[in-house]
């Protein structure tokens, strides 16, 4: 089972199932949350750090057309492919990632810090962010909710948690 970047670039013009970005440094947890989301028919991209998540979010929502074109100017073949992919990204800008679900406790940058960065960004702040944690710490939960987290799920995350959440959060 590969956690592939299925969502980016929109394979063909299939009606977009909501695209969820899952962030967790544990490969086991990434596999499990990906499995749960896919079984609920979402497109999933799973990354292992908040930094990678921000890169992904930035690459989807941050680059302008001229920037992308000039970047690939010297590689005509790559340019064609890249433009096709990124044009479809731009077309879905802001709507490509419908939800972020992130582990709280990660080395380098926590899920809370990722949440703050998302909510501070004018481009990203509308994206619902859900935090997961194996520890039930009320102050932590409140802090995340106050910062704008959509929900806080206790691990191990169940399919029922995710379907309840998604039906509430996603269109």
């Amino acid at each position: 089972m590969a956690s592939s970047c299925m969502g980016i670039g929109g394979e063909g013009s299939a009606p977009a199932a909501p695209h969820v970005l899952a962030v967790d440094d544990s490969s086991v947890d990434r596999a499990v949350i990906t499995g749960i989301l896919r079984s609920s028919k979402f497109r999933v991209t799973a990354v292992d750090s908040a930094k990678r998540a921000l890169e992904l979010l930035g690459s989807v929502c941050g680059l302008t057309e001229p920037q992308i074109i000039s970047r690939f100017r010297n590689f005509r073949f790559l340019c064609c492919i890249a433009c096709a992919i990124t044009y479809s990204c731009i077309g879905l800008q802001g709507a490509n990632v419908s939800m972020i679900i992130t582990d709280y406790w990660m080395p380098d940058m926590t899920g809370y810090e990722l949440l703050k960065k998302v909510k501070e960004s004018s481009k990203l702040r509308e994206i619902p962010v859900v935090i997961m944690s194996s520890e039930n710490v009320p102050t932590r939960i409140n802090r995340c909710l106050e910062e704008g987290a959509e929900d806080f799920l206790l691990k191990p995350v169940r399919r029922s948690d995710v379907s309840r959440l998604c039906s509430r959060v996603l269109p």
Partner: protein
Amino acid sequence: MGYLDEQFCQIEDLQDETSPNFAEEVVSLFFKDSVRLVTNIEQAMEKYPEDFNRWDAHMQQLKGSCYSIGASKMNNECTLFRNNCGQENAEGCMRSFQKVKREHAILRQKLESYFQLLRQAGPAGTATRPAGK
């Protein structure tokens, strides 16, 4: 069997035509991860004697993985280890760590046998002869 709880069933339930071996894949990821984490803990206990915070931080990661696949017995031993860290009981930690390693080895054996049995049983309709050994 007491080794795995309902979370493991949840993982098996996620198997379908597109991911027919999902549970085995997740378990394989778990063991790749857990072997590394157990080694980290072992090294930390050697290199940093009585550094309970460090030991605990490593064990927290291992416990998290156990929790995610429903490895309840192993999870319990991890908890006991963490309790010993909290009480700064080095000997207690050594003892519980041995138990964690033992449960880890047992779990691995059991899951390997389990998936082997599933493979031998095969998809319905294709098993035409009894399992070899």
